[in-house]
């Protein structure tokens, strides 16, 4: 299922490069420069993290970034302004925790948030602490307002749950490459291939995340069957390093753009090797 044409388009031709950054990290203006750098680097979809005070699904890299953004004053309202002000080609997806969605606006329930997100040009949502079983109200609002609702599939997800998830997912499925929370790793797990195999029969783009940090990772993952790669911690690390070393915004943005290019190219190489493999059959 797909609600957002932009997202569908992002996965339509070739592998999608889906970077993630925390909005407002380390401040509003730099953050905008960084997100735009991802776009220049070839992003197809950008996952924008709206910081929540209790991010139970994050690794420490992203947790620290969320704290920086909160300390700098990020709020849902400012997040939406940020999205509106962005000058990017990529489709925008908001990644946040359910309580912020639930509390937004005057009436409780997820609808006001989705309305405002739609108005701000957001095309989809990823909510790591919202399981499919509790997602119906949010999915209805998304369906109505044309947003995709992305679910995460973990290596531990059992077959029965997989069906339940895949019935409800839209836009793309976020394939968690390994057990654990977010964080950049140096290896690419065997679990990835296994997970992709399990998902082969489902007709929805499969974006693999958790631990991708370099072009050759991206290449192998796409070669293994992924329709896209999601990269978070490796990019957030660059922002954190910029803060620690007090680097100019432009320099950090350049590094983000460079890594993006590398990742995107890696993904494309992986895609080519896959199509060649298919062709050669």
């Amino acid at each position: 299922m797909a609600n957002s044409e932009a997202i569908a388009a992002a996965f339509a031709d070739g592998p999608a490069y889906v970077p993630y950054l925390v909005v407002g990290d380390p401040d509003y203006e730099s953050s905008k420069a960084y997100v735009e750098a991802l776009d220049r680097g070839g992003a197809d979809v950008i996952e924008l993290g709206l910081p929540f005070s209790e991010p139970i699904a994050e690794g420490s890299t992203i947790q620290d970034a969320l704290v920086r953004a909160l300390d700098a004053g990020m709020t849902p309202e400012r997040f939406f302004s940020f999205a509106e002000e962005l000058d990017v080609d990529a489709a925008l997806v908001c990644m946040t925790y359910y309580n912020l969605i639930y509390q937004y606006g005057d009436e409780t329930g997820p609808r006001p948030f989705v309305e405002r997100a739609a108005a701000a040009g957001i095309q989809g949502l990823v909510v790591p602490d919202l399981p499919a079983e509790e997602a119906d109200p949010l999915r209805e609002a998304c369906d109505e307002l044309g947003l995709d609702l992305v679910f995460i599939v973990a290596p531990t997800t059992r077959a029965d749950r997989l069906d339940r998830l895949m019935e409800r997912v839209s836009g793309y499925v976020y394939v968690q490459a390994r057990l654990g929370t977010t964080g950049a790793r140096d290896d690419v797990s065997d679990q990835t291939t296994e997970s992709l195999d399990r998902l082969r029969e489902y007709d929805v783009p499969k974006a693999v995340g958790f631990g991708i940090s370099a072009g050759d990772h991206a290449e192998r993952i796409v070669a293994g069957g992924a329709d896209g790669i999601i990269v978070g911690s490796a990019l957030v690390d660059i922002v954190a390093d910029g803060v620690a070393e007090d680097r100019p915004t432009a320099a950090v943005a350049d590094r983000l753009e460079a890594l993006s290019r590398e990742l995107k190219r890696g993904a494309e190489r992986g895609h080519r090797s896959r199509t060649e493999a298919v062709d050669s059959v």
Partner: protein
Amino acid sequence: MSETDTRTTEETERARRPGRERGRDDGKFGPYGGQYVPEALMPAIEELADAYERYVLKNEDGFLDEFRERLADFGGRPTPLQRADRLSERYDTEVFLKREDLLHGGAHKLNNALGQVLLAQYMGKERIIAETGAGQHGTATAMAAAHLDMPCTIYMGERDINRQRPNVFRMKLNGSEVKPVTTGRGTLKEAISETMRDWAETVEDTHYVIGSIVGPHPFPVMVRDFQAVISEEAREQAIEKTGGLPTDVVACAGGGSNTMGAFADFVDDESVALHAVEAGGSTLDVDEEAGVAPNSASLYTGDEGVLHGARTKLLQDSDGQIMESHSISSGLDYAGVGPELAYLVDEGRVDPVAVDDDAALEGFHRLSNTEGIIPALETAHAFGFLEEHHEELGDRVVVNVSGRGDKDLDAAIEETDQRDVANAPDMSMFTGGI
């Protein structure tokens, strides 16, 4: 053989008491509860729900028998229901104390920790993890893990470690690894995230022992069931001692595990009023700007939201960001509360009350010098409630003494020093700490 059978049936019966059915099937208490967790953990909590069903509800392999036996022999159950002579006189009503402070480790926490570690063993898990704030749940878990020979890792914020060194030392003595959490502000919330993170990577062989009736299903019902032994005993003891049910049951509420433990078997006794006493901190007002609630009164002042895996009542700002809570007692210092309590408050079955730091401190001194029992600062809130509200209570009041105060001596000195506490002893020699 037949003896085991009888016992088994008895235990199963006990597990099936009417007051404990709530939430068991789907983890929902009205609008509250649920399983708001990352997908990677879903299989683990489903597995746990299954184990809960088999071992806790059906007493498979005699789990409940072993649990009861270990609670008795290792934990020291039953704990007494003691008449407090001098408080009874003071308030002109019969005051009874349920003495959870006498449980091994010094608080009700062991009821739950022992249950969960034993369950993990029945499930074939090989490792225990837990988070701790003030260290009470951590020490209880470390004790249970040592007792059952399970390797155990406790996550604790670095700032909390520095404030609670005796508890850290106790965990280490019991053979647990204590991992300092340095992310964020180095307190309970970061420790929770870090434990979740560990669990998300290790679910297959590891059990996460949650410390209160919070978190995703089946934790709230399971922890309640393990703690329900408090009210199970208290109810029988009250009937035996006084010939009838109490008129009121009072318990402090942080996450709410001693609270639901003390309430569980009384919920269906409509004549018994149930009072959940929260930390009123310095004031019930909040500072939205700073994201700070100078209290932990989530039942009394909080509103609906999703935190740490469950929908419940929370202290949050209008955006839905969780507030930093505050209390003189670190064990009550939590922005959420168990979903079951949130529901029972909405239903009007449980009466939520807030008692501020000053009144809690006076309660601490009052119980110490009139009854010879030094309570935990958490527990002291229940005695602050008694002082302020005794005229509204019936003539047979049970107060749950959730823990002893040995852990709080330094805090008591510091806090008493800052105030003019009428009933405190002269503590001039202790200025600056013990």
